[in-house]
């Protein structure tokens, strides 16, 4: 190297700089050109008349006929990590991207954006109240699985009519077993709304317990009802919640899909014996739908009777985040 003159060394450096810049530019161009190839091209299917199901196909908002859920499917270009719908209001938690954290988007029946809320975290749960007025979401702020120890969630509620936002349910006053309760380690997740647009149910975890809480949005309070109830989902008739129960109270061992009668607080384990990590959705007052992950990471939507009487069956292959569109 000492043989090279100063000028020769500068020349070598300049040539190398040009060549390396070229390599970098080509790699950027190629990636920019290939943008979005993993997305499924949107398709418009001829769906049968009658009720429909909304699901996510490969992270894209889709609709199938409730009568023929495994049949033709309309796939839109709207990308969500989690979605829900009620009364012509669709909510979608946008996927986190390299340059943007997630966003909650409220869409109308034609999927036109009505409003959006910027959020920080990994999308997890989303819910619309039966009237379409209230919207709730849960994000993982730290960690992103309920099975590990040190996760932290953030659950918020938006009133689409007044525009008011509860940034985190942790602002609410808590009563545990009838006593006022305060603790640093409180986390909330998985909201489900009653039809009065004020009462709601959710999971509150603290000190190793995961409680079913009943909340009052106007009073900004929650109170515990039962232990070991996660991701509740209120039945259309308002008498029961479907939920996931940690096996032997230990989330590390998986969850058993169950229902709880709100009057008697008696729980019933359903006939689904595989571990379900989802907030179930009621298709009607007797049937539940939920997603299960295959070995290769693809999701399928399954359904099971809410009384534990019959075995689960495959409902929508290659889909997750199901919701029944009652008014379609």
């Amino acid at each position: 190297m000492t043989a090279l003159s100063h000028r020769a060394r500068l020349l070598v450096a300049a040539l190398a700089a040009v060549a390396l810049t070229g390599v970098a530019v080509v790699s950027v161009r190629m990636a920019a050109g290939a943008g979005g190839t993993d997305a499924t091209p949107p398709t418009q299917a001829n769906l049968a008349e009658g009720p429909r199901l909304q699901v996510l196909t490969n992270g894209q908002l889709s609709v199938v006929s409730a009568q023929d859920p495994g049949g033709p499917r309309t796939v839109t270009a709207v990308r969500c990590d989690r979605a829900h719908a009620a009364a012509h209001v669709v909510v979608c938690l946008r996927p986190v991207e390299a340059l943007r954290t997630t966003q909650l988007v409220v869409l109308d029946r034609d999927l036109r954006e009505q409003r959006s809320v910027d959020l920080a975290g990994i999308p997890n749960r989303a819910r619309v109240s039966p009237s379409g007025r209230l919207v709730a979401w849960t994000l993982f702020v730290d960690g992103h699985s309920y099975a590990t120890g040190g996760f932290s969630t953030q659950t918020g509620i938006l009133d689409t009519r007044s525009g008011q936002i509860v940034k985190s349910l942790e602002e609410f006053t808590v009563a545990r077993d009838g006593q006022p309760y305060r603790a640093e380690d409180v986390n909330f997740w998985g909201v489900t709304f009653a039809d009065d647009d004020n009462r709601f149910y959710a999971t509150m975890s603290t000190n190793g317990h995961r409680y079913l809480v009943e909340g009052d949005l106007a009073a900004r309070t929650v109170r515990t009802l039962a232990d070991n109830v996660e991701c509740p989902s209120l039945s259309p008739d308002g008498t029961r919640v479907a939920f996931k129960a940690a096996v032997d109270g230990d989330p590390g061992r998986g969850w058993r899909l169950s229902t709880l009668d709100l009057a008697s607080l008696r729980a019933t384990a359903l006939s689904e014996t595989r571990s379900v990590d989802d907030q179930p959705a009621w298709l009607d007052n007797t049937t539940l739908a939920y997603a299960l992950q295959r070995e290769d990471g693809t999701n399928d939507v399954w359904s099971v009777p809410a009384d534990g009487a019959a075995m689960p069956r495959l409902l929508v292959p290659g889909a997750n985040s199901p919701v029944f569109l009652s008014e379609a």
Partner: protein
Amino acid sequence: MYLAMIGRPKTGAGEGGRRGWAALSGNVLALGTVSLVTDISAEMVAAVLPLYLVVGLHLSPLAYGVLDGVHTGATALLRLVGGYVADRTRRRKTVAGLGYGLSAAAKLGLLAAGSSASAIGLVITVDRAGKGLRTAPRDALITLCTPPSDLGRAFGVHRAMDSMGAFAGPLVALAVLAAAGGAFAPVFVTSFCVAAMGVLILVLFVRDHAGARPPQGTVPPRAVVGLLRDSGVRRLLPAACLLGLTTVGDGFVYLLLQRREDLALAWFPLLAVGTSLAYLLLAAPLGALADRVGRVPVMLGGYGALVVVYLLLFGPLSGWPLIVLVLGLYGAFYAATDGVLMALTGTLVPEGTRTTGIAIVQSGQAVAYLGSSVLFGLAWQLWGPETASRLAALAVVVAIGATALLLIRRNHPTPAEPVENPS
């Protein structure tokens, strides 16, 4: 000011008794340029890696934390071995070049590793190993081509250029992400290209110190043991450990700022950019100040800035004044301690074993730093972040006293004593 000098031809260090900025050798500037370019590459990846692992690969943050911690110890050992080999063979440039090369290769390794957590762990280890290998011989080269009275300045300029790279890295990464439509692969490819350029600049423009070879047997392993008994090293090593122990970690400082001000997570990388900005602006002036008024007082001043940082995290200020002041003082702390400690080491460790000496001091600092972040995490869990940060401030006050006791006797800059003359 140092920017203006890059284009100016430099004669060898110490010639003609020149002092001050003009006496900085071309080698220091070449090494600074290598560090600048390499740090752009390293910080590009550092800025997007957590995002890539969690968002791109759906790896849990916990798994990443474990990946990170386990390998740090192994690289500390490699740093010592690298320092010793560099001293023994007197080929500091070659050892440093190997380190820079390994880190460059690791950027391509990230592309090849795919989504396998163990492969990514291996690649990160190789990257760390490269960093461990190169740091000590590089700093030794700086001390060997600079007269002792100008070491503060030389390290100041080097660290300023280094942090200029750290400052630019995350910005370049964000620009590449934006241009590539959010794809991660081009970030790694670009990072590799930048790193390769750094290696090339080292090969082409950095000269190894051509000091007289020690008579025959080069550096025997015994000399390393002897080094531990050397009075300079015996005072520097505890001082370096104290420095490491008082640094609870950038992550914790930024996390507390983020919580206090409820910043969006996207701001996280920008907090590091703010600290780098303060560091790069202050490194050269504080280095020069250290040459003039003494290195130990400047180090102690840096600790003072750190005390204020820890106290401010739960102090009276809020909003922009808080963020600007904390990041500014945090950068000032780095500028007043990191390079200045190496300048001190350069004057106190004999030339023949200098790379090893620097490696020992840096390893002490790195291991202590690892311990302090674990301790701070524990204190946070036990007593909450407020008490933990107050305790950290208290620890720095103790460190100020201890450092003063350890180093104050030899703090005045060595007067123009005979400097090794590049033949």
